[in-house]
């Protein structure tokens, strides 16, 4: 291949899009490294502190699309204190300084201020796509800046962010010449928006395929929008409170009967049972349905809906669907690939799900490859059956609401069950385990889960051996997060070189001590060993024996970060 001119090689690289493959290409030789870096347009930085923005831009000057991840995953569950970090502003500033032609920015678990949004809006004239997932610290003023300045905006996708809503008129700020919108998702906003402005925006966006409304948009507006935008494929219906007597109800039903193109629904924040029949015509064509934010309905009602969804591939529901509901899903939704069952908050007599529901789904839906399942109880027998029925799992996350509950029938630990899962599912990349678990389950994981990239563990294991099985056995391990397990310095220090091959390690409420952390930091200078002294009980220069409650270890090319707050110590 080296006989070809550079342009040809570059042309070939153009067809290689996966980041992993591109990374591999760049390691072949200096020539390929050089060619690859100039042709790379999309970069994923899985840990924003592993590298500095300057170095990223220096290496990839033609960068057009950037995906940054900030806080550790457990920040989702309030385990990472406020102000830990993950600021996006330095990245934007650096990109702006280097006159980057950034077009797409995707951020997950980062702190995004209005200043950052304004800077994005003003610095990148060709900016097309902003996706913010689980971010915080910005307000609708920042959104207004984006709307006003990004003429060619195609995508504004806000997923589960904490946004301070100033109830300003941010939606009005979309200029009249902005006609390129393809996707708009503001479902997580809490405040009112200007409905007329929304309708006008939809009317002048002929390419709009995905629109997700927030809970303040009334169903009449939804109807008018649907009339204006027959090309919509993915709809977040907002509150969906629709009086079955009203004209809107009938108009909506009539309209949707003709709309065969809708493939994905979400929202339903305040849906009442009687409103649902208005959208019955849509269900048979649905590929994706998210009812996880709907009020907790009795399972029987959900069953009526789900029986219609014969083509469903992705389903997110609350556990009030019950085992009975899941059996219906298993019967009706043969194409199901991804299922998430969330807890509904107050089990006020609503049914919940158990191992029966999961077994039913596994036998009815052989294509299932991604699962997040919050349940009352589980058994080894059930997990063994599930493993046999569905060997294609890529993501398997099981959360028993009582974190140390054993097998519900035999009262044994759930080691055998999860062992069966890792043994059968050769392609398993992500695993979360719960329930009563001993070191045995980790032995199974270390032995069989050769493709495992991310493991989340809580309240499990008996000794350091558990963690060691995983560190030594899982070759592709990338992220390990542990909470409330009896692992100490022995486990932490046994295989320190492993952490270099991983993105990060999180350990909280375990048995690691300051001494262990110091030792780790000393022997592995290319890691940042962050001790998070949230409650202020640790003494930085004190005793080695102090127990460290929160530890975050990650590999980095740029040493200790400069923006760490005073309760985070990089040893």
């Amino acid at each position, binding site marked *: 291949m080296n006989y070809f001119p550079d342009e040809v090689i570059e042309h070939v690289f153009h067809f290689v899009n996966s980041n992993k493959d591109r990374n591999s290409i760049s390691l072949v030789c200096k020539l390929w490294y050089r060619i690859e870096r100039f042709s790379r347009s999309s970069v994923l930085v899985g840990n924003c502190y592993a590298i500095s923005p300057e170095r990223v831009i220096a290496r990839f000057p033609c960068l057009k699309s950037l995906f940054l991840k900030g806080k550790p995953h457990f920040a989702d*569950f309030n385990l990472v204190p406020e102000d830990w970090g993950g600021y996006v502003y330095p990245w934007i500033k650096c990109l702006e300084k280097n006159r980057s032609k950034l077009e797409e920015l995707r951020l997950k678990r980062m702190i995004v201020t209005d200043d950052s949004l304004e800077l994005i809006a003003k610095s990148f004239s060709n900016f097309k796509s902003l996706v913010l997932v689980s971010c915080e610290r910005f307000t609708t003023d920042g959104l207004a800046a984006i709307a006003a300045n990004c003429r060619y905006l195609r995508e504004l996708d806000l997923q589960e962010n904490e946004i301070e809503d100033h109830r300003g008129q941010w939606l009005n700020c979309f200029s009249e010449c902005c006609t390129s919108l393809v996707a708009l998702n503001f479902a997580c906003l809490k405040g009112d928006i200007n409905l007329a402005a929304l309708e006008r925006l939809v009317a002048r966006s002929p390419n709009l395929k995905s629109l997700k409304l927030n809970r303040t948009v009334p169903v009449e507006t939804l109807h008018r929008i649907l009339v204006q935008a027959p090309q919509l494929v993915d709809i977040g219906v907002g509150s969906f409170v629709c009086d079955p007597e009203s004209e809107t109800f009938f108009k909506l039903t009539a309209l949707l009967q003709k709309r065969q193109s809708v493939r994905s629904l979400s929202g339903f924040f305040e849906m009442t049972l009687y409103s649902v029949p208005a959208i019955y015509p849509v269900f048979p064509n649905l590929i994706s349905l998210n009812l996880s934010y709907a*009020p907790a309905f009795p399972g029987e009602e959900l069953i009526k809906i789900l029986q219609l969804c014969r083509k469903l591939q992705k389903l997110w529901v609350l556990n009030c669907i019950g085992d009975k509901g899941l059996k219906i899903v298993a019967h009706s939704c043969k194409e199901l690939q991804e299922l998430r069952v969330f807890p*509904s908050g107050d089990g*006020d007599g609503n049914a919940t799900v158990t191992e029966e529901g999961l077994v039913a789904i596994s036998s009815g839906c052989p294509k299932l490859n991604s699962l997040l399942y919050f349940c009352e109880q589980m058994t080894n027998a059930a997990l063994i059956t599930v493993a046999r029925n569905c060997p294609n799992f890529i993501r398997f996350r099981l959360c028993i*609401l009582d974190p140390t509950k054993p097998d519900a029938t035999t009262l044994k630990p759930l080691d055998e069950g999860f062992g069966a899962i890792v043994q059968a599912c050769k392609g398993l990349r992500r695993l979360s385990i719960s329930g009563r678990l001993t070191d045995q389950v980790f032995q199974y994981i270390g032995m069989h889960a050769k493709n495992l990239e991310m493991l989340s563990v809580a309240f499990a294991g*008996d000794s350091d051996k558990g963690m060691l099985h995983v560190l030594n056995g899982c070759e592709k391990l990338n992220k390990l997060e542990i909470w409330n397990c009896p692992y100490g310095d022995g486990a932490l220090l046994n295989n320190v070189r492993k952490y270099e091959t991983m993105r990060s390690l999180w350990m909280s409420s375990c048995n690691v001590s300051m001494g262990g952390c110091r030792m780790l930091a000393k022997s592995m200078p290319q890691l940042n060993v962050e001790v998070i002294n949230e409650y202020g009980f640790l003494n930085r220069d004190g005793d080695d024996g102090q127990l460290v409650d929160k530890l975050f270890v990650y590999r980095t090319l740029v040493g200790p970060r400069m923006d760490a707050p005073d309760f985070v110590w990089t040893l």
Partner: protein
Amino acid sequence: MTPPLLGVGEECQSNVTLPSSSASLKASSKNLELHERNYMMGLFGCPTIKGPAAAGVFGDCKSNLNLKATELRLGLPGSQSPDRGVDLSSGEPDEKLLFPLHPSNNSHSGNKRGFADAMNTNGASEGKFMANSDVKAMLSPRSGTNIGQKSQPGLESAGPKAPRGVEGATLQVTQEQPSSGIKESRAAGTPAPKAQVVGWPPIRSYRKNSLAATSKNVEEVDGKAGAGAVFLKVSMDGAPYLRKVDLRNYSAYQELSSSLEKMFSCFIIGQYGTNGARGKEKQGDNMPKDAMDGTDYVLTYEDKDGDWMLVGDVPWEMFLDTCRKLRIMKGSDAIGLAPRATDKCKSKN
């Protein structure tokens, strides 16, 4: 070695030393703190957290619970006793009086589960996510201020509540919800760690907050599990305007019928006033009945298919499901239905 999180332990202790009160609310919330303290000590105080030890911690909770369960009997009238799960029928009338939940509501089974679990295993609880957030306020002084700043809708507590910790949170949670008795007893009947530990269950805080907000809304609106009120139009022939009724308020046809009679009585009186036929101005149930006798009013409804049906043929639940509109027809209009209507009126006599 400095015992970590000593402050947490202290805070827990300060919560535990409440002034002893006979109110079961306080007693139960004390239970919760005790459980929580045990659990927290297990988490942070013990140098080695082994599986069996953890189970031991839960075991402690369990034994505490069994004792405390009896205390609940002193509490609210009609509140559940430990063997409530067995004895549903006798408990029901009280339930209905106190709690706006529909009698056939599965809340009984939910409660039963709570206790059974407390007795047998380490139980499952749907968790109290609001309390969870409040616990966070207690545990993390730094984060506690954050709650105040963020002003999330689901969270009851702002900064000021933080020092009061779980006790304040628990009281607040139980007072807010109509089914407080059930929640209280179930809460005390399940191991505390489930519901009140930061980070568990592992749901994104955004989702947790919005769940809390939704469940609050639903319960405030109608106190029933799940669906909201269902308002249907009721028209009456000859009346100048229509009314709306919420079918969920009734549990049988008789209730609906008498309520409609009361609602439309003014029109019937008016009619007779102008006609001068009877000139009665009686109040209460008698008058409408007599009026119905005289002019053969028939209650009909329009169903899902658009057909007008006579009210009363199908079971109440099915009626709720299929009814779209109500209409009080004059007997003379309801030609096909008239014979039945006459019979109905006769049976009323």
